[in-house]
């Protein structure tokens, strides 16, 4: 085999392998594209649009048909009325028309000027051209008729044929109707900066707390003792259990009236009255004459975050620590290093990489966290973070555009974090 044909052969193989790889990845790629990447772009699109929750139902032409007068004996005069209206309060309908099949057995004496009668294959139809309808526009079409054959015509028969409508409606989502009002609204709101501040407090303290607790737990669980594996399993419970269950357990546990913690504090004489842990914005604490405003609900939410996510840090730190070779500790022992020195100079450098990765990942995830705060406080009492604000704007105030604008702000922050993350993440971390 000559050199060229051999390399050609390899080229064919490589191409085939390439094609197969793309084929295997295609489903994943398509799904992620459809559910993650396109919505991400769509979110930018929506953030520049004046869309509310109500606009999701597209505008349509609503027709009500009614027959007036008596329809009993031949020669009875009656009217057929079509009432129409544009269902949208904001958007017009273009090129609207109505078509309805009419039964035989009556003669039309007067026709609305917008309408025509056509016959197709022996059946009569009426077509009325309504043209462009403004938002909320409504009107009436009237046909006068005289009955010929009572067997073929009745109110029920007339109603039985449903009028068909034709129109072109502008879909708000796809129209080119843009505004920057959403962003103006988001940034000008006085609470926005509070929300941002809350978000940052929550993220920084939540992440740091979870990491420190995880580190502490890992130090404890590194020692072998009877029942260790049971306790290790127990420590992972908060992370594994559904957020809905643990969040509501906390709510019940700290309930001001029927909660265990409040009752316990009252019993011990520590508190004078019930404390509404998740409902109280702040409490004044005076230390040496200085009055400090302590944010109660926010601290509780942060505490929950720490409680729920320390197991994750614990697990990773423990796994890393168990991979540290034991002989370096023996060597340190020989050299007279004390336990704290061993921790500070040996263990810590070994786990620094995983700590950094955990910090950045947890930082981003805590920043993105929605469920926990939403379930604990609903974003009240000074615990509204950016993510809760997205929900608030989009679904509670039903302004989808403003919600999307807040989501864009989140995304920008996220991008900054990610750049930092990629820049500084240690390469050996796993």
């Amino acid at each position, binding site marked *: 085999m000559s050199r060229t044909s051999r390399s050609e052969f390899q080229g064919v193989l*490589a191409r085939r392998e390439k094609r197969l790889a793309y084929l295997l*990845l295609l489903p994943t790629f398509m799904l992620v594209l459809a559910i993650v990447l396109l*919505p991400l772009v769509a979110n930018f699109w929506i953030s520049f649009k004046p869309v509310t929750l109500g606009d999701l139902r597209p505008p349509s032409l609503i027709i009500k048909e009614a027959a007036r007068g008596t329809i009993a004996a031949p020669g009875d005069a009656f009217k057929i009325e079509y009432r129409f209206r544009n269902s949208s309060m904001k958007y017009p309908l273009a090129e609207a028309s109505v078509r309805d099949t009419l039964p035989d057995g009556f003669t039309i004496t007067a026709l609305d000027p917008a309408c025509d009668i056509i016959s197709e294959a022996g059946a009569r139809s009426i077509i009325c051209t309504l043209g462009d309808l403004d938002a909320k526009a409504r009107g009436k079409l009237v046909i006068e008729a005289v009955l010929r054959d009572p067997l073929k015509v009745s109110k029920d028969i007339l109603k039985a044929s449903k009028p068909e409508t034709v129109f072109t409606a502008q879909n708000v989502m796809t129209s080119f109707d843009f505004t920057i009002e959403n962003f103006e609204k988001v940034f000008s709101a006085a609470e926005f900066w509070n929300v941002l501040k809350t978000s940052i407090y929550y993220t920084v303290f939540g992440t740091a707390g979870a990491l420190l607790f995880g580190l502490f737990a890992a130090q404890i669980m590194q020692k072998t003792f009877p029942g260790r594996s049971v306790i290790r399993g127990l*420590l992972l419970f908060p992370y594994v*259990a559904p957020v809905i269950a643990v969040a509501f*357990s906390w709510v019940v546990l700290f309930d001001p009236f029927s909660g265990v913690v409040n009752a316990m504090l009252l*019993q011990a004489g520590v508190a004078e009255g019930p404390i509404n842990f998740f409902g109280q914005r702040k409490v004044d604490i005076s230390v040496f004459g200085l009055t400090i405003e302590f944010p109660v609900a926010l601290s509780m939410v942060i505490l929950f975050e720490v409680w729920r996510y320390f197991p994750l840090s614990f697990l990773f730190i423990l796994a890393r620590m168990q991979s540290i070779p034991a002989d370096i500790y023996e060597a340190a022992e020989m050299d007279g290093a004390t336990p704290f020195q061993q921790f500070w100079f040996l263990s810590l450098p070994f786990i620094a990489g995983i700590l950094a990765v955990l910090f950045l990942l947890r930082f981003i995830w805590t920043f993105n966290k929605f*469920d926990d705060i939403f379930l604990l406080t609903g974003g009240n009492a000074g615990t509204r973070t950016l993510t809760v604000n997205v929900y608030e704007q989009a*679904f509670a105030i039903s302004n989808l555009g403003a919600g999307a604008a807040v989501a864009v702000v989140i995304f920008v922050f996220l991008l900054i974090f990610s750049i930092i993350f990629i820049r500084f993440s240690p390469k050996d971390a796993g």
Partner: protein
Amino acid sequence: MTGMFASALTGFVWVALWHLVLTMTAILTMGAALPLALGPAALAGLVAGVFAGFQRPASSRNRRIAGIALIACLLFGFSLGAPFDPAGLLDVWQRVLLLVLASAAGWLSIEKTVGPATAGYMARYAAEEFYLRLLWGLGLMMFVLIVAVPFYVMVMTSLKSQQSLLINPLDLSIDYSLGVTRLLRSYIELFTDYGFMTLLINSAVVSVATVIITLLFSVPGAYAVAKLRFPGRQWLSGSVLLIYLIPAIILVIPLYAVFSQLGMRNSLFALCIVYPATTIPVAVYMLRGYFAGLPSDLDDAGLMDGLSRLQIITRIAMPLSMPAIASVALYVFMIAWNEFLFAFMFLDDVKLFTLSRGIVSLNSSEVPRQHLMAGAVIATAPVLFLFLWFERFLVSGLTAGSVKG
């Protein structure tokens, strides 16, 4: 610092702490309104600590019995004969049990913490070891308590009735005289009146479907990234996890809008599309690591024997990586089972609610608290059961492959 001081400190801390913990346990399990008086216990512990400082180094059985007896006597004496309930709310056996437990736990903790330290001056090494032992014990106690208490309260509240919760929130004791049906009334009502069977089935259907779809998509994808050469491979394996950093809250508005307009928002099918999209990237990441560890010779041998690549995946790669696939499956199941945001946003129809969505609607002033907690137990039990059953798998899969927030 001298060993004597260390051991006195130890006694002071431990006996007071155990007294506190046992009093709280007694309050919660027996429903008696006991006072939290730590003074006598701290004092008794201090004396016992000094005793432990003198009596060393051997930890013989006699010394242990003497120590426990000493604490018991001191507790009894310092508190004027009523170490736990001055008001006399408990039965005699309960008081004796509490006293014995407090003394034994206190003494064993002291023994463990003081360890081999001597009564005289402690060198830095010994002092640090002592502090670490103290910290270790305290830390262990704290972690177990903070994790266990909310779950304990969750289970116990679900077995109570509304009146008894309001009369005495601290009484979480189980009244066995009520009988099984009265005790489990909240659960029975959830299943009969609140349609929890439907919720359970919906959750199970969505979770299992998510697992199946995720595996169907991610196994070939992960194999391609791990074993095949193609342009963009490096970039792909690096960026696949970036998807995971995108928060669901950003995606929820566009997905809500589009799914609403397509008329498929309020359906389990919508969840079965959205959930896999969020789990597949992690699954690919976790499986990729495992596939990459399989020797390529096996693939080559398979190719030589005339297998196609797809057959290699199903007949060689998959059977060999069953542990990894199992852990991914469990992990994805848990994510789908626990998911709240999309279920909350998408589902309007009570018949389609998943457990998460259904339990949120229990959080209202009209539904009694014990129903909410019973719902929480029902949602938690299956995942905790799965987790405990497959813990080894999961823990290694989690730490080897990836992380989740």
